[in-house]
């Protein structure tokens, strides 16, 4: 059976997006998106960790004892995360400080364990790595969209370069400070999920609860 790498790679971008469809890994997606630079660094780190972890786990998938498979996967993911964190501290010290604990928290990002457990454990290394890379890209896409919007409307900047002229400096744009606070990430992510699910109605979940019938208030 031929493996359709194209579909594996492009599916997680929107149709099977890990963040907007599966709502995985949103903790870090919300925390590091105050600026495009941190969002991009986080995206790259997660994609690299996820791809390498999927490759390694897939390569040894036939030899991972079932009873300790989760711990083996976590040890591999955690080691890769530490290595990435060290590299960031060495070469991107400024951004590494801005990301603080969140790089370390890639270890516990359910997206990573989700992909290695659900896909890499049952597929050959090339397919597993393509799948992981695609999921990393899907995660990155959401982070970059949210990070870009937050930086643009919160500071009028993109990548630290002034795009919208600030009112303080004689322009017309007044920064929305709310965009730099955590709640705005929830609003934006919620809006994004809503937008995606309106365009692709198949993604909408069936309601789990039906609200009780409301009686008309008595006149």
């Amino acid at each position: 059976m031929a493996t359709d790498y194209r579909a594996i790679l492009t599916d997680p971008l929107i149709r099977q997006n890990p963040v907007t469809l599966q709502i995985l890994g949103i903790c870090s997606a919300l925390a590091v998106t105050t600026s495009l630079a941190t969002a991009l660094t986080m995206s790259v780190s997660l994609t690299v960790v996820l791809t390498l972890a999927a490759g390694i786990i897939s390569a040894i998938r036939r030899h991972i004892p079932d009873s300790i498979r989760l711990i083996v996967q976590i040890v591999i993911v955690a080691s890769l995360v530490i290595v990435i964190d060290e590299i960031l501290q060495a070469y991107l010290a400024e951004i590494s400080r801005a990301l603080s604990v969140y790089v370390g928290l890639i270890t516990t990002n359910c997206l990573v364990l989700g992909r290695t457990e659900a896909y890499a454990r049952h597929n050959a290394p090339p397919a597993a790595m393509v799948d992981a890379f695609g999921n990393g890209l899907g995660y990155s896409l959401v982070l970059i969209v949210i990070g870009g919007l937050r930086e643009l409307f919160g500071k009028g900047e993109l990548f630290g370069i002034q795009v919208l002229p600030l009112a303080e400096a004689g322009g017309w744009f007044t920064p929305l400070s709310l965009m730099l606070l955590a709640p705005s990430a929830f609003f934006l992510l919620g809006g994004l999920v809503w937008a995606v699910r309106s365009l692709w109605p198949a993604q909408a979940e069936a309601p789990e609860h039906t609200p009780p019938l409301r009686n008309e208030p008595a006149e």
Partner: protein
Amino acid sequence: MAGSEWNPWRRFLALPNDSRTKTIGMAFLVSALCAVMVSGATVVLRPIQAANRAQEEQARIEALVRGIPGMAPLLEASGGALSTVVIDLDTGRAAEDVSPATLSTALDDPANWTALDPGADPAGLGRRPDLAQIFLLREGDAVSLALLPVTGTGYGGRIDAILALSGDMNTVAGIAVTSHSETPGLGGRIDERAWQLDFAGTEIRDETGEIRFQVAHGAATTPYEVDGITGATRTGGGVTRMVRFWLGPEGYGPFLRAVQRGEF
């Protein structure tokens, strides 16, 4: 087939996955390889990280001096330069044969360190260097500002900071935390500027010469106190002990007295 295999590695791989030998063997192999990977990365990248940290510390020292009210004009007047001095902590005078350039070599020598008794070691350091590099700003002949690197132990680990003392060597002019590993959002707030600004003007000793400085539990009520951080009592205690130790007789005490006598 597996029984006739002579290669022990193949025999190991051919074992059923849930056999005890294979489970323990795989756990051991994975951890060993991961340990090699992590330690390799740490060792290879450490020099670059250390250089980054040194650069950052320099930037923080400059920012600290600029942030102290009234310091910018003083700095301009003195040509914008702080003088760097290596002092001998025991005598409180400038070290004779050590310059800032040779300091790190001198500190590699265990003879230049003093072990601290647990009783006389409130900052939890274990040992203390005999030499320290400090930064001075002079106004005429008198020292108008001293920047003293200090180290202590907080809740999460080591705290490094630079404490700025005004010319009377009893009033804090400012503090900059250069590295710490406190809990983000709680003790980690010690690197927030708003909290550090509260140090300016805090006094260290009362008239009798007793060190009264402390990070308060809650809001500061005396001139010797700094506001505490909610949820970070142990970090605050660590900062208190750090400042008390380093400004006491085991730390910069002799140096501070020498400056106050006008001998520096």
